[in-house]
């Protein structure tokens, strides 16, 4: 290939590798017999988080297409904000970090 490309720096490669490593470390769900409640909460909140991201994406798309009134934008924004807060609070109550809601739901990686 004769076309020139901007060279990637060593620390940039390392940073990219670390990011991919982080994504590949997504936890798999396995109910802990000592704390089945926490495991179930993790699964449920992960699925809710998946849906929240879908809803957010759809709301943003409609906002960009100007198919939301100012009032609808405010209402949906508030609802999404409260949903995000609720998920975070519930997760926190079960001792779950944001990364714990990134369950591996696919063959070898994240669902989204």
């Amino acid at each position, binding site marked *: 290939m004769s*076309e*020139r*490309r*901007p*060279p*990637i*720096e060593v*620390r*940039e490669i390392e*940073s*990219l590798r*670390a*990011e991919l490593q982080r994504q590949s470390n997504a936890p798999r769900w396995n109910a802990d017999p000592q704390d089945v409640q926490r495991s179930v909460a993790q699964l449920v909140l992960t699925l809710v988080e998946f849906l929240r991201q879908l809803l*957010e*994406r759809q*709301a*943003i*798309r409609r*906002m*960009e297409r100007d198919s939301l009134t*100012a009032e609808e*934008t*405010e*209402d*949906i*924004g*508030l*609802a*999404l*904000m409260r949903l995000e807060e609720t998920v975070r609070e519930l997760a926190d109550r079960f001792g779950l970090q944001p990364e714990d809601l990134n369950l591996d739901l*696919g*063959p*070898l*990686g994240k669902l989204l």
Partner: protein
Amino acid sequence: MSGVYLYALLGANPATSPGVGVSDEPLRTVDLGGLFALVGDVPAALAPSPATLTAQDAVLRRLATGVDAILPARFGTLVADDATLVESLTARRTELTRALAQVSGCEQMTLRVWGEQAAPPADAGVTDAGPGARYLAARRRARQVPEVDTLRRRLGALVKAERVERHDRPPLLATVQHLVPRGESAQYLAEVEAAGAQLAPWRVTVTGPWLPYAFGGAA
């Protein structure tokens, strides 16, 4: 456990024999009604390694020379049988057909955006908006990469579609996938090279062309 290994979705049946897959197994297609699944019957899914990943990508690149619209599947996608495949995909036919139409005749260029700090939020004129509207605006900014706006302007119609992922872990700020007509990658690279210093304080590196791995889902 043996099964049916999914390689890709195709917009049309290949005109010539699809050849063999990564395990030297004969490849075949499954008609999903308007689109086709490219599969191989294998004894087990292969573990990911530089060799197997490269081999799978190579199988798809070869197929792509004879098919305009191809959507690679995620590595490791093994199902029990054709019936499971059809069941899993039929309900999503409309979306998948739309995605195949979009990537037809195109390939993917991958931009990595580097820097120490993300671009500051532009004045979006929502200063007098309520908390809900401001939240939505902030969530929207999290899905954007304004750092390469200058490059986007240069690329113009070369970019048919875009997928974005922000990382915001300096120096890795974001990844941008661009869908570009096949055969135009040299021009794309020339524009990236020429944009160079204009992107400061951010840097961009680019790999590709790839098959349209990032364009199988919704925007």
